[in-house]
Structure formats: structure tokens, C-alpha cells
């Protein structure tokens, strides 16, 4: 399968920090890739970098490569990039409250993208906007189309955002924490909708989230980020059955959700001590200050990604699978 998007060695630089470092991943057509990490892991900046919408203080390092459908996006002229944005790569954001223009009707906000990219007339764009509202399952779309965002609930607003994003049938949809601001019953609706649209429109989805449960159910492939680096990549089944990186393991055992019948009377949850702040400025493995298996050598250099099994990557040399003995790992160390 040829990949739709290939990111190589992405490094995002601010004057004093590099919140994303040497990140590589790829995603195939109609695939869902989840990028998981807690706040400060650099996952949202990665998404903005793909859209070339980073804040002006940030820059993408020269050696970074982002190839989309065979085209190199780094260094692409602003004009060219605008033709891709909203048409071939679309994005939805975490806060449906603030992501829509408050003084413009939702109909016009949807129509705008069609008028710009598909050169539709106002009337045609409005007709398509109604269809799109129907597509994202907003009841009575011909009435709702003249509503302002504040007249809609949070879930409805996120549906409108999705309608805008899929209006031009993009090949790639980047969803940055699309359900974090929503209630759990609404979250299920929105994720359901996203997945249906992915299949119907054959688009790839990058799902950025901090929620491991969401990852397990909706992703084809998972990238785990910590302090700006990819620390593990696997198919979701493998990841949850047999997490390899100490951070992933820590997360899974710290999460009450993944320990169904565990109650506080049975004992404490497994903790990951400290916080992500401790990773700042560390040479060596970023997770070392919080890792319960850290050794002296972890502080020397950043552990490279190794291939412990088919379709898996992990950035820890001391990992031991509880299942099959990884042959690739033993080759290197």
C-alpha cells in the first residue's frame, strides 16, 4: 500500500524549545492513525505542522519532510498550500465552541469553503451545505442552516465543523481531540459519525487524542508520543495486549478504565511518578526521570526506535515483551 502521508524526521522548533523532535510516521489511504499523548507531548503541534498552520514563533526544522500524496509540503508556496487546505487536507479542532465564527451563520461558514475551492455559486453552495448538514446528521438541516453557532449544542457544533471539513471530500482529515470537550454520550455519536464518513468518503483520519479507550476502538494504527518524541507505535490490539514501552505500560496500568473490576479497596492504582515537565532539557531518554526501569545508560543518548516485532516500533532498548521474544530487538542489543 502506498502511503498517503509520510512524515519524516519532523522537528518543530521554538526559540528555546523543540516541542516535537525527529518524529516520523506514515498513514495509508482511508486509514485511521491515532496519535496519543498527554498534554505537552507535542501531538497538537504536529497536527498544525501538517496543515502548515503553526504559530509564527514556531518553525519546522530544515531536515523535516512531510510528503502528502507524493508532494512535499515543507517549503510549499503559501498559495499552493491554500489549495490543499480545506480541499485535500482538512482539520477539526478540540473546542467546537470557539472554532466557529460567532457572527456568521453556519450555512455561510460551510458554503464558504465550497465557494472558494469548488467555485460554486452562492445558491449551489447553500444547497450543498444543506446536504452536508444532512450528511453529518443534523436534524432539519434546511432550518438549521441559518442558525448561528451559539444556537447549537456542543455536539451539533462539532458536527458543523465536520461538515466544513468534509465539504470538499478531502483525502486526509486531521481531528485534534475532537471529542475532549464533549460529553461521553455525545463523544460516541461524533466518533461514530467520523468513522462512517471515513468509510463513505474514503478519507484517511489522523485522530489526535489523550484517550486510550478511544484509540483502542477507532484506530488502525497507534503512535504514542511522549515529550515530543514517538516512543511506541503498534496496532491497537498489540498495544493493549502487550505494551512495550515503560511509558505505555505505565499509562495502561494507571488507567482505571482499563482495569475493569479494580476497586480502591483492592489496592492503589499503579502510578507514574513525577510529571512530563521533568523531561524538559534532559539528554537521553525523555522518560528516564519517571521510568521505573531506568538505568544509567538511559541518560547517555536518546534511545533509537527498534522493531521488536512485525508492525511495531518502540524506543526503549530494555523492553521485554511478555509474549513472543522479539528477534529484532536482540539483534541490536
Amino acid at each position, binding site marked *: 500500500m502506498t502511503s498517503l502521508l509520510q512524515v519524516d524526521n519532523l522537528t518543530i522548533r521554538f526559540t528555546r524549545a523543540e516541542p516535537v523532535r525527529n518524529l516520523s510516521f506514515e498513514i495509508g489511504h482511508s486509514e485511521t492513525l491515532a496519535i496519543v499523548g498527554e498534554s505537552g507531548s507535542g501531538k497538537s503541534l504536529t497536527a498544525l505542522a501538517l496543515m502548515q498552520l503553526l504559530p509564527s514563533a514556531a518553525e519546522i526544522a530544515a531536515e523535516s519532510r512531510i510528503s502528502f500524496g507524493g508532494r512535499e509540503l515543507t517549503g510549499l508556496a503559501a498559495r499552493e498550500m491554500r489549495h490543499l487546505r480545506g480541499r485535500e487536507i482538512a482539520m477539526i479542532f478540540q*473546542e467546537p*465552541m*470557539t472554532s466557529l465564527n*460567532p457572527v456568521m451563520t453556519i450555512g455561510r461558514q460551510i458554503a464558504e469553503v465550497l465557494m472558494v475551492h469548488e467555485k460554486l455559486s452562492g445558491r449551489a453552495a447553500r444547497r450543498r451545505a444543506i446536504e452536508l448538514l444532512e450528511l453529518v446528521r443534523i436534524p432539519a438541516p434546511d432550518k438549521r442552516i441559518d442558525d448561528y453557532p*451559539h444556537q447549537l449544542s*456542543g455536539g451539533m457544533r462539532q458536527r458543523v465543523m465536520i461538515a466544513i471539513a468534509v465539504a470538499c471530500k478531502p483525502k486526509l482529515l486531521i481531528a485534534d481531540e475532537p471529542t475532549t*470537550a464533549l460529553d461521553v454520550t455525545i463523544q460516541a455519536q461524533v466518533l461514530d459519525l467520523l468513522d462512517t464518513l471515513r468509510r463513505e468518503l474514503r478519507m484517511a483520519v489522523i485522530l489526535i487524542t489523550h484517550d486510550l479507550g478511544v484509540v483502542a476502538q477507532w484506530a488502525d494504527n497507534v503512535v504514542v508520543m511522549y515529550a515530543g518524541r514517538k516512543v511506541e507505535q503498534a496496532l491497537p490490539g498489540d498495544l493493549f495486549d502487550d505494551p512495550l514501552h515503560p511509558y505505555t505500560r505505565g499509562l495502561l496500568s494507571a488507567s482505571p478504565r482499563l482495569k475493569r473490576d479494580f476497586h480502591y479497596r483492592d489496592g492503589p492504582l499503579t502510578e507514574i511518578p513525577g510529571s512530563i515537565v521533568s523531561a524538559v532539557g534532559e539528554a537521553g531518554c525523555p522518560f528516564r526521570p519517571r521510568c521505573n526501569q531506568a538505568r544509567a545508560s538511559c541518560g547517555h543518548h536518546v534511545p533509537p526506535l527498534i522493531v521488536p516485532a512485525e508492525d511495531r516500533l518502540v524506543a526503549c532498548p530494555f523492553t521485554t515483551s511478555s509474549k513472543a521474544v522479539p528477534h529484532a530487538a536482540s539483534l541490536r542489543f
Partner: protein
Amino acid sequence: MSIADAVNIRDRAAERQAAAAQEAAATGAAADGPAWSNMKAPDARSQQSATVAITNGRRALTVFLTNPNALFGAGFLAFVILVALAAPILYPEDPLSMVARPFLWPGQDPAYPLGTDGLGRDVLAGILHGARISLFVGLFATVLGLTFGVLVGATAGYFGGWVDDVLVRLIEIFQTLPSFVLLVVLVAIAQPSATTVTLAIAIISWPTVARLTRAEFRAIREKDFVVAARSLGYGHGRIIFHEILPNALPPIIVTSSVMVATAILMESALSFMGLGDPNVVSWGSMIGTGRELVRTAWYLTALPGLAIVFTVLALNLIGDGLNDALNPRFSQDR
């Protein structure tokens, strides 16, 4: 004629925010995050209404001291203060007395570097002495207006309910009356003197502070740390002065420098119209007498005017500098 108008937007914004926060608290929808972050309309001075900035004094001071504009403002203001203090020593005689031939142009006679007016009074002596009344009125009107405004605003914002309703009405009445017209009426009725002018300026300037303080208090009152204070059984006094006021202070401090500037402008306009203290020379009254001769001896108008412009500019530069130092979010844009 009120610079302090500019401050009004920020408190309108903060009011709206407070209302939104209350609503969010009421619906229990706080978990949805701030409703419409763009509800906080910005204003010319600050966008940072009641977000409770994390600033410590030393950091703010560093920012202020590395801002060349603010330093210039502070330096010039210090110079004006020095001049005002030194005026009676440098020119012990009454600046309203005739000392030389009238209509000496600046530079014409080294004894009178800025020349003399139509009655042979020394312009430089007038300007130096004029600094005294400007600063006196500016400072005391601000202190009075600030004290009263903060008290009223804090009371209204903290207690809410009918107290708030009544006080807001009062503020609204004063803000609806065109402030300079009211000022003219007050001074005309009370008879002009340094004291009445100061009092009258305080009367027209407190509503701005009150409104700002009220908005800050309303917004901060809803913050969790104040709720925590209430849940711990703190008294009203402790909550107002220990918990809320320190957080409401930065915008109030910024406003106060603008208030001094406004008060100086107001005083000069009053004196210009002949409503200043008749026994004291002031920059405004110098312009007022100079204006009859503006066609021939325009320097009599220009020079005291420049004194006003630079003093007010210095205060406004300080205000901007304080704003940048105390409200860090805005400073990033500069």
C-alpha cells in the same frame, strides 16, 4: 474629554465575562470550558480582564525597566516633579507679577529664556509654577477618585444583589452625564479654587474606576479560589482584601496613571476656560490668556501647551508600560 473612557471597554468586557462565568456555573457547564472566549472584547489598554495573571513584582519591574518608552515617561515625570518642587526656590516671586517688558520672544533676552507675555510676566516662571497646580490637581483628584471608585466598585461587585443594582444605577447616572459639562457646572457652582477643581474632577472620575473595579470583582468572585475561601469560612473583609483585591489591582494601577493624565487635561481645559483657581498660575490659564494674542505672539500659547502635552504623554507612556508589565499576555504583541 475623558481619556479614562478608554478603560470602559475592558470592564464592559469583564462584565460580560463575569456574566458568562456565572451562567456557566449556574448550568454546571463549566466543564465545557469558557463559553465563547471571544466574548472578552479587548480594549485599547488591556485585554487581560480578570484572567488573574500570574505576575510577580520583580518580573513586572524588569519588564517595566526594560521598556524604553516607559522609562522615558518615568524620567520625564520625575523631571516635572522636580521642577514643581524647585519652582518656588528658582522663582521665589509671584509668577503673576510683571517683571519685564511685555512680548519678549523666547531667546530674545537671556534673563527670560522663554520670553514674557503681554503683561510682562516671565513665561518660564509661569510654566515652572504651573507644574505645581497640574500635579497637585492630578494627584489628589486621582487619589480621591480612586479611593471612592474602588470602594464603590468593590462593594457592588462583591456583594451583588440589590446593593449592586443601586450602585450600578449611580455609576450609570454619572457616566451618562457628559463628564466635562458636569465638571464645568460643578466648578461654576462651587466657585473655582484648587480644592474645588480637585474635588470636582474626583467626582467625575470615580465612576470609571468603580465600574472597572466592579467588573474585576465580579469576575474574580466566581473564581474557584474565592469559592474555596468561602468554603473555608473566611469573612467578607478577608476575602475582599486578601483574596480578590490583590488580583484586581493590576488594571486599577494602570488606570490610575491614565487618571492622573486625564485630571491634568481636565484642569488645563477648565483653567483655559477661565474656571481655574484665579490666584494660581496654571498651564491652562496661560494658554487662555495667550489665545487672545495667538495671531502675533503664538509662543505664549505654544509653550505651556507643550508642557501639558509632554507631561500627559509621559503619564500615558507610564500607563502603557505598566500595562505591558502587569498584563503579560498583551506584551507579547508589542
